């Protein structure tokens, strides 16, 4: 009996103690931040925008389906630092703010260019609540504008929107997986520099307003913009979600030094070995006014090699891709082996040219090794001291590049032989 009483007493006491009295936090007493936006402040160092989940609206309150518009609430405030801002926000948000479900950190381009993110990038990994896989994005407009423009149409839950949208690079190739962990490592690295997803707010409300002033097709001497010739906010589209992602923000340490458009981002992914698959449009090599579209996939991991010749880096990149024919507007029978070679060669040259443009842009204009070629150079050193003294990041600007692209078209889709469209005036006849 005494033993029983003892056990009962111990269990009763432990029940109280083990429930973690001091750290007890009820789920419905917490407000989960989904997105954090950072802009340059007007009255203080930072303007902080917090998108906070409204779980009742996400769940629909038991009435079947939630309301996307009401699924989150957005607050903006100014303070000296991010954590100071959270403290301030806790004064007018009824529940305690919690960052453990924050999916994205959006920084305005203005702040990123001034290197204003240095301070909080150093603070972020220290925080237990912030996840290392939180996405990092740079907004071409203010971060507040971007977050306020996130009004998901196909999802109720904004967190799901961010997760799906920011992972779309796997089938578009127009952004990359840039999370906090990766950004932090590269920011402090001696052989690689970080990038962040480029975000923006669409400029157009209606189709009539469309223009291509913001497209990069002109710089590439193209007659029309191809799908990769845009950066976030400049895509010629109306309707749907105004918030867009396209391209990458290029950093030198914690300071943003440039932008990459969608096409350059695709080449970045290919060189990094992170490219999965994507459509790629090009002018038909035999009929320039028509387009060809291939569905391109990575065939093998890229081969990268760095040699030092006369104290200057010579970088060799070999990319191996395979593709399926998606569209042949001209009706030329590219499926025939002798024609297939022409198409493959044209694509190889097209990609090679784009890659060289990107590589020289990063080395000569941005002077930042976002590809991590320094990793290959590091292998040539025996000790860390020698490598540190070598100063790869300073030498990258003198690099020359040899790019080799090998593309093999494997399948023609469901059409094995193309034939042209016939017109009454005889056009199209071969």
């Amino acid at each position, binding site marked *: 009996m005494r033993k029983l009483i003892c056990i009962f007493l111990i269990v009763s006491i432990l029940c109280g103690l083990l429930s973690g009295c*001091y750290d007890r936090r009820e789920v419905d007493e917490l407000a989960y931040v989904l997105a954090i936006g950072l802009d340059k402040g007007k009255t203080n160092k930072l303007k902080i925008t917090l998108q906070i989940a409204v779980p009742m609206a996400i769940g629909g309150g038991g009435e079947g389906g939630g309301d996307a518009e009401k699924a989150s609430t957005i607050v903006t405030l100014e303070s000296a630092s991010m954590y100071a801002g959270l403290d301030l926000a806790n004064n007018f948000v009824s529940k305690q703010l919690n960052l453990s479900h924050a999916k994205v950190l959006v920084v305005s381009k203005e702040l990123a260019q001034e290197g204003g993110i240095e301070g909080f990038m150093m603070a972020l990994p220290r925080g237990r609540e912030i996840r290392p*896989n939180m996405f990092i994005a740079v907004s071409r407009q203010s971060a507040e504008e971007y977050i306020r423009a996130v009004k998901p149409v196909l999802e109720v839950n904004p967190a799901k929107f961010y997760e799906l949208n920011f992972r779309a690079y796997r089938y578009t190739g127009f952004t990359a997986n840039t999370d906090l962990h990766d950004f932090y*490592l590269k920011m*402090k690295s001696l052989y690689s520099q970080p990038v962040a997803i480029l975000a923006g707010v669409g400029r157009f409300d209606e189709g009539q307003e469309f223009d291509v002033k913001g497209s990069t097709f002109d710089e590439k001497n193209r007659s029309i913009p191809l799908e990769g010739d845009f950066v976030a906010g400049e895509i010629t589209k109306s309707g749907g979600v105004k918030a867009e992602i396209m391209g990458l923000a290029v950093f030198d340490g914690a300071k943003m030094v440039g932008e990459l458009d969608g096409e350059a981002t695709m080449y970045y992914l290919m060189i990094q070995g992170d490219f999965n698959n994507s459509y790629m449009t090009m002018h038909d090599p035999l009929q320039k006014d028509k387009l060809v579209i291939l569905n391109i996939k990575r065939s093998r991991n890229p081969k990268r090699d760095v040699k030092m010749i006369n104290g200057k880096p010579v970088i060799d990149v070999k990319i191996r891709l395979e593709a399926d024919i998606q569209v042949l507007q001209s009706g030329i029978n590219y499926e025939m082996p002798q024609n297939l070679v022409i198409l493959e060669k044209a694509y190889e040259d097209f990609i090679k040219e784009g890659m060289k443009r990107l590589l020289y842009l990063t080395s000569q204009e941005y002077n930042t090794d976002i590809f991590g070629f320094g990793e290959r150079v590091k*292998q040539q050193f025996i*000790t*860390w001291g020698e*490598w540190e003294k070598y100063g790869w990041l300073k030498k990258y600007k003198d690099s020359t590049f040899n790019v080799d692209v090998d593309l093999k078209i494997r399948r023609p889709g469901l059409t094995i032989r193309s034939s042209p469209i016939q017109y009454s005036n005889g056009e199209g006849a071969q």
Partner: protein
Amino acid sequence: MAMAENKIKFGKWEASALIITLIITQLILGFPRLMVETAGTAGWIVVLYVTILALLAFFIIEKLYSSFKGKDLLDISERIGGSILRILVGIIFLAYFIFIISIVLRSFAENMKVITLQQSPISYVTMFFIIGMIAGAYAGIEALVRFCAIVMPIILAGLLLIFIAVSPHFNFENIFPILGTGPIDIFGKGFLRVSVFSAISLLFFITPFIKTHKSFRTVGYVSIGVSAAFFFVGTFAYLLVYPFPIGVEGFLPVYQLSRLVEYGRFFQRIESVFVLIWAASALIYLSSVFYFIVYVFKKTFKLEYYKPLILPFAILIFNISLIPPNLVTAVELESKYIRTYVWIISFVIPIVILVTAKYFKRGTNKEEKKNA
């Protein structure tokens, strides 16, 4: 009670499980960071190097021990230097155990605060570990080793799961430059890191329970081998994910690795597995070492019972653990002193005692003569 203790016997599996769990605890606390601190990108080479050193030291000890089947270090000390040496050796090991358990207790409590119980006072968190230690010591060595035999495979499987799951983040270029901060750091500073195997010293006190020399030898090699394999995999994985010099920033390397695991939108936040492993290791480590503190004290001073010692020692350890003013001091005490110099106590003192016993006092034991 003494009679009962003599009857306790456990097998090679249980003993190995105990020693492995005690050694492997460091992997959870901060071992990979310590290796990266020692030699930079060559931290993994330090692991291989100290493993060879530990195996070499154990080889010598094991050969010397062959003449002292079933005797622990205190028995052997008594044989060569009488009660004085027995008490002296006992006090040295007691001081070492008390120091190490206090720092580790504080580290575990602080880690718990960092990971999950941020608002709870440190004394409140420490109290839970103390309760576990007391319960473990009351249950005795047999219960502890049997518990270890069950939990150790779970701990190792959990660690392996984390290392495998984090593999998409591996970057094999991180091990270059191959010699890290240089051969002097690897083989000079690295030499002191042999202390990571210091928990093997507990094997010299469980010899009466494992009886045969063959078992002693097997347990020693298996424990060092398995622990070294996990140390290597852990350090290598950490280095491949967190390159030098960022690798020296991580406070809890394995926890930080587990936070990176993510497979799709569903399989995330695997660090809960880590917390389970971590809590299990902490409890086993603390209660086992605590048991040995009271056991060694009892044996050193030839007391009949150890249970009345449990509460006073628990209070003593609790108080010592709260002496470091902050977490950084506790971590520094652990890495600068415990993981640097305790090899002297774990390997040098036993070798000196065994050499003296074997070559200068051999055969003084009547029983041994009779057996011969």
